[in-house]
C-alpha cells in the first residue's frame, strides 16, 4: 500500500516555480471547460436582441419562430415572470431584467430566446421574431448623461448588499447611480496659494474583455432543485442571487464551474445564469446558452471614463492640492459599476502625498452595453489620468518625471487621501526599480529624421477591495493524502496551484500531491468571488488557516492516542491507529475576512480603507514614425510589488500577460458606436486584440523585494498590477519622441498623426 504522509522532509512549498497542476490536461486538449458540457435532453438557447438603444416595447411577435419545425419554445419577459415574478438582478443594483421588460435600454439587450435541440434551428428562428418599439431619445456620453433629461431608469434600485449604496434607494430623475466623494483638507485654499495650477481632462474608451471561451451557462432542473454549470468567476454569488430570484433556500441551488477559458472580470457576479435558470424551469429540460464572440460585446464591457483633474503645485515641485472629477460610463445596467466608481474612485488622486484632496466620482447610466469589472477594477483608467497629468506637470516645470514622482510619492506611514496610513506599499521601490531597469540617467538615443524615440514611466496602485470573505476546507484521508476544497475559480491565474502550494507549505506535503477541488457550491465552501486580485490574500489566508486547523486536530488525535509529544504528525498513521484500518478523515476549516473601517459618507475618510495596496510600475521606449504616426514599442519594463511571489514562474506570466492586455487597450482596442448607439466592430475582424506581432522582442518583468506583513506567507495579489502604468507611460514616450500629447485612449497611429498635423498648424479634417 502506498501512503502519503505529512512528513517534515518536504517543507517549504511557497516560492517554488511550479508548473500548473492542470498543465498536462491543457496541452493535450483534455482540460475541462463548461464550453464543452453537453447534458442529456439539453436544449440550446439563442437570443433575440434589441436593435434600438432606447425604446418602449410595443409588441413582440414570436409566432413565426414558434411555428418553425424543431423549435421547442420561444420566451419573452412575460414568460420569465411565470417562474421569477421579480426578474431584476445585479450585484449592486437590482436593475437588470432577465429579458427586456417594458423597455429596451441598449442595442444588443436580450429581448427573447428561442430554445431548440439543434442550435442552428434556434438561431434561424430568432430571425423570425419581430419586435416593435416606440423609440425614445437616448444618451451615450457619461458627462452628458449625468445631467440629461433622458433617463435610462425611472428609479434607482440598490440591491441592499452594500451598505454604502443604501442612501440611493428610491432616488428618481437621475442617471447618476452613485456619487462618491472624498474630502481632505481644502483644495480651494491650496489652489489659491499655489505657485502653479494645472487642469486637464483625460478620457478612456469602452472596451471588451473578450475571454476566448465566450460566456456560457447551463441550467439543469431537478426535483425542487436546480444545478447551474457556468463559466463564472463567482459561483457563491450566483447561488445566492439565484436563490433570491427564486425565493428558494441556498441549498436548493447548486452552482459549479470548471476551468475558465479566461475571465478578466467578464464572468463575474451574474451574467447568463438567471436566464438559463428561468428557461430551464419553463422548459423543464436542461438549457445551454453559449454566447458567440460578438454577443460578448453586448453583455459586459470596461467603463469608458472622463476624468477632469486639477492640481496645485508649489514652487519646489510638490503637489499641494488636487481636485478630481470622474464620470464612469456604466451603460444601461449598473452591474458592479457603482463599486468600481467608489473603490477605484478613492485612489483617483494617485500614489502621492497630498495635503488637500477633493474627489467626486460618478457612476452614470447611459444607453450603451453595461460596464463592470475589468482587470484592474477601474484603476487603469485612474492611473492613465493621474500619471499623464504628472508627466505634463513635470514637463511644464522642467522637472525630470522620475524626480517629480520622488518628490511627491506616498511613503511608508504617510496618510493616503482617505487618511489610511500607508503600510507595505513599495511605491518608492517600484519607481526606483523601473527607473533602474530603464537606465534612466544614462544618455538616451533619440533617433533622427522621421523615426524619433522617446520614453516614459508610470506607476499606480490599487487598494484590495474589502472587506470580503473566503472559506476553505482541508481534508486528510486515511492514507494521509490531502484534498483542498475552495471556491476560488482557476481562470488561468493558476490559483489551484497556488492553493496547493500554500496548503502544502503548512502541512509539509508536496503541492503536486495535493488535489484542489474545483468550485461546486454543494461541496466547496463560500468564497466572495475570484476578482480584483483578492484570492491570493483572502483564499490564501483561508487555506492556511484550514491547514493549520487540520494540524491542530492531528495534534489532538495524537494526544488522544497517547503518542509522544515530539512524534511526527503523520495523518495516515494516526487515522489507522484510531480506526484500525485505512479510514476516516481529518478535516480542517479556515475562514478569513480582513479588518476594515468603512469610509465616512461625506468625506471618504477611513483609518483602515484596505488591508493592502498592490503596486505596479511600467517603463517604455517607443519609436514614432512622423510620416505615419506609427508607434513601435522597443522596450517594455514591468515591475510590481506583490509581496512574496507564491509561484514565481506564474507571477512572471501574470506580469507580462496583464501588461500586454493593457497594451492592447492603450494602443488599439475600442468599441466603436455610431450616433444611434449601434456597435460597429463586435468581432475580431474589426476589434483588434494583441497578437504575437504586437509585443516587443523582450519584456522586462520584476517583483521587488517586499513582504506583506498581514498577508499569507507575506503575499498579496498580482493579477492586475502590471496593467497600471502602461498607458500613460506610452503617451509620455510619444510626447518625448515627437512633442505631441494625447489625452484620449487609444493611442492609435491616426491619433498621433492628427496631433502631429495639428502641431504644425495643418489640422486634418474630422471623419
Amino acid at each position: 500500500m502506498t501512503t502519503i504522509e505529512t512528513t517534515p522532509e518536504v517543507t517549504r512549498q511557497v516560492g517554488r516555480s511550479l508548473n500548473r497542476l492542470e498543465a498536462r490536461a491543457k496541452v493535450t486538449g483534455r482540460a475541462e471547460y463548461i464550453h464543452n458540457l453537453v447534458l442529456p435532453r439539453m436544449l440550446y438557447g439563442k437570443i433575440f436582441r434589441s436593435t434600438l438603444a432606447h425604446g418602449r416595447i410595443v409588441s413582440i411577435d414570436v409566432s413565426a419562430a414558434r411555428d418553425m419545425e424543431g423549435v421547442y419554445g420561444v420566451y419573452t419577459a412575460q414568460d420569465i415572470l411565470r417562474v421569477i415574478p421579480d426578474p431584476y438582478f445585479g450585484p449592486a443594483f437590482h436593475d437588470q431584467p432577465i429579458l427586456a421588460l417594458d423597455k429596451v435600454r441598449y442595442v444588443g439587450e436580450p429581448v427573447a430566446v428561442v430554445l431548440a435541440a439543434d442550435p442552428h434551428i434556434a438561431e434561424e428562428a430568432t430571425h423570425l421574431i419581430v419586435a416593435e418599439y416606440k423609440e425614445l431619445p437616448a444618451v451615450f456620453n457619461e458627462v452628458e448623461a449625468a445631467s440629461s433629461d433622458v433617463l435610462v431608469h425611472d428609479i434607482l434600485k440598490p440591491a441592499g448588499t452594500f451598505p454604502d449604496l443604501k442612501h440611493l434607494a428610491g432616488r428618481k430623475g437621475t442617471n447618476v447611480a452613485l456619487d462618491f466623494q472624498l474630502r481632505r483638507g481644502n483644495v480651494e485654499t491650496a489652489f489659491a496659494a499655489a505657485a502653479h495650477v494645472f487642469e486637464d481632462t483625460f478620457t478612456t474608451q469602452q472596451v471588451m474583455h473578450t475571454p476566448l471561451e465566450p460566456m456560457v451557462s447551463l441550467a439543469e432542473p431537478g426535483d425542487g432543485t436546480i444545478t447551474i454549470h457556468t463559466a463564472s468567476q463567482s459561483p457563491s454569488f450566483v447561488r445566492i442571487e439565484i436563490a433570491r430570484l427564486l425565493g428558494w433556500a441556498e441549498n436548493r441551488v447548486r452552482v459549479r464551474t470548471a476551468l475558465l477559458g479566461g475571465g478578466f472580470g467578464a464572468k463575474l457576479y451574474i451574467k447568463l445564469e438567471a436566464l438559463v435558470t428561468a428557461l430551464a424551469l419553463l422548459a423543464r429540460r436542461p438549457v445551454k446558452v453559449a454566447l458567440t464572440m460578438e454577443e460578448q460585446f453586448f453583455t459586459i464591457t470596461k467603463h469608458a471614463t472622463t476624468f477632469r483633474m486639477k492640481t496645485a503645485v508649489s514652487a519646489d515641485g510638490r503637489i499641494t492640492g488636487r481636485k478630481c472629477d470622474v464620470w464612469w460610463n456604466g451603460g444601461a445596467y449598473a452591474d458592479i459599476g457603482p463599486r468600481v466608481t467608489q473603490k477605484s474612485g478613492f485612489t483617483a488622486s494617485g500614489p502621492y502625498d497630498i495635503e488637500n484632496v477633493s474627489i467626486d466620482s460618478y457612476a452614470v447610466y447611459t444607453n450603451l452595453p453595461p460596464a463592470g469589472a475589468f482587470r484592474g477594477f477601474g484603476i487603469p483608467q485612474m492611473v492613465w489620468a493621474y500619471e499623464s497629468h504628472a508627466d505634463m506637470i513635470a514637463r511644464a516645470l522642467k522637472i525630470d518625471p522620475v524626480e517629480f514622482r520622488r518628490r511627491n510619492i506616498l511613503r511608508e506611514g504617510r496618510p493616503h487621501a482617505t487618511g489610511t496610513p500607508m503600510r507595505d506599499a513599495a511605491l518608492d521601490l517600484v519607481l526606483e526599480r523601473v527607473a533602474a531597469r530603464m537606465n534612466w540617467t544614462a544618455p538616451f538615443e533619440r533617433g533622427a529624421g522621421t523615426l524619433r524615440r522617446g520614453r516614459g514611466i508610470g506607476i499606480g496602485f490599487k487598494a484590495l477591495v474589502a472587506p470580503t470573505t473566503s472559506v476553505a476546507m482541508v481534508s486528510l484521508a486515511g492514507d494521509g493524502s490531502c484534498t483542498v476544497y475552495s471556491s476560488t475559480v482557476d481562470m488561468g491565474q493558476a490559483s489551484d496551484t497556488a492553493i496547493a502550494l500554500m496548503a502544502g507549505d503548512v502541512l509539509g506535503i508536496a503541492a503536486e500531491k495535493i488535489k484542489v477541488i474545483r468550485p461546486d457550491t454543494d461541496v466547496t465552501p463560500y468564497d466572495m468571488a475570484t476578482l480584483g486580485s483578492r484570492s491570493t490574500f483572502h483564499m490564501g489566508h483561508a487555506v492556511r488557516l484550514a491547514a493549520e486547523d487540520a494540524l491542530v486536530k492531528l495534534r489532538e488525535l495524537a494526544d488522544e492516542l497517547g503518542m509522544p509529544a515530539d512524534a511526527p504528525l503523520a495523518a495516515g498513521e494516526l487515522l489507522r491507529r484510531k480506526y484500525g484500518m485505512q479510514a476516516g478523515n481529518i478535516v480542517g476549516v479556515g475562514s478569513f475576512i480582513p479588518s476594515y473601517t468603512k469610509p465616512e459618507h461625506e468625506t471618504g475618510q477611513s483609518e483602515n480603507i484596505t488591508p493592502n495596496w498592490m503596486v505596479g510600475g511600467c517603463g517604455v521606449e517607443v519609436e514614432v514614425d512622423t510620416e505615419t504616426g506609427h508607434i513601435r514599442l522597443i522596450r517594455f519594463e514591468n515591475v510590481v510589488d506583490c509581496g512574496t511571489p507564491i509561484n514565481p514562474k506564474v507571477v512572471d506570466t501574470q506580469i507580462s500577460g496583464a501588461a500586454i492586455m493593457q497594451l492592447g487597450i492603450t494602443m488599439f482596442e475600442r468599441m466603436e458606436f455610431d450616433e444611434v448607439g449601434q456597435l460597429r466592430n463586435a468581432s475580431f475582424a474589426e476589434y483588434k486584440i494583441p497578437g504575437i506581432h504586437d509585443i516587443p522582442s523582450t519584456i522586462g518583468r520584476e517583483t521587488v523585494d517586499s513582504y506583506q506583513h498581514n498577508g499569507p506567507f507575506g503575499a498579496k495579489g498580482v493579477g492586475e498590477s502590471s496593467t497600471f502604468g502602461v498607458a500613460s507611460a506610452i503617451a509620455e514616450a510619444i510626447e518625448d519622441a515627437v512633442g505631441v500629447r494625447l489625452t484620449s485612449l487609444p493611442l492609435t497611429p491616426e491619433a498621433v498623426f492628427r496631433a502631429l498635423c495639428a502641431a504644425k498648424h495643418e489640422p486634418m479634417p474630422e471623419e
Partner: protein
Amino acid sequence: MSATSITIHFVLNGERVSAEIEPHHTILEVLRQRFALYGARESCGQGLCGCCTVLVNGESVSGCLFLAAMADGGEVVTVEHLDSEGQLDPVQQAFIECGAFQCGFCTSGFILMSRELLDRNPDPSEAEIRHYLSGNLCRCAAYPEIIEAVKLAAQMRKQTLA
C-alpha cells in the same frame, strides 16, 4: 436524419470513422458533437483566433470554417492524437516547461501550429515563429512564453533525431 443529410467517411486520429452530417456542419461541430473531442474549440467563429485549429490531410485549418463534408475521404488529426503513444509530443512538453499558457483555451491551436511550423522548418528564427503563429490569439498574452516554447521544442526535436 433529414433529406439533406449525407454520410462522410474519414480517418480520425488514425481510426476509420463515419458520421451522418448536414451540409452546413463544420468539422469542429462534428468533432465535438459526434466524437466528443473537445480540444478544438470555437471562440471567434470567424477563423481569426486559431482556437479551432485541426489538421485535415496534414494541413492546419480553422475548424469553425471548414465544412465537415469536405473531410470526406480524408484524414483528420486533433490535438488529442499527439500523445496517443502515451508520451507527450516535444511541443507539448515544451509548452509545459515554458509555462506557455494560462487559461489554456487557445493552447491546442498554438500547439498544432507550432508542430506544423517545426515540421516545415526545424530551426525557425524568432521572426519566423511570430509569422507562423500570427493567426493564433492568446488573450492571456502568454506570447513571450509561447515563443520560448517553440524554440525549446525545436531543440528537443533535434536531440530526439540525433
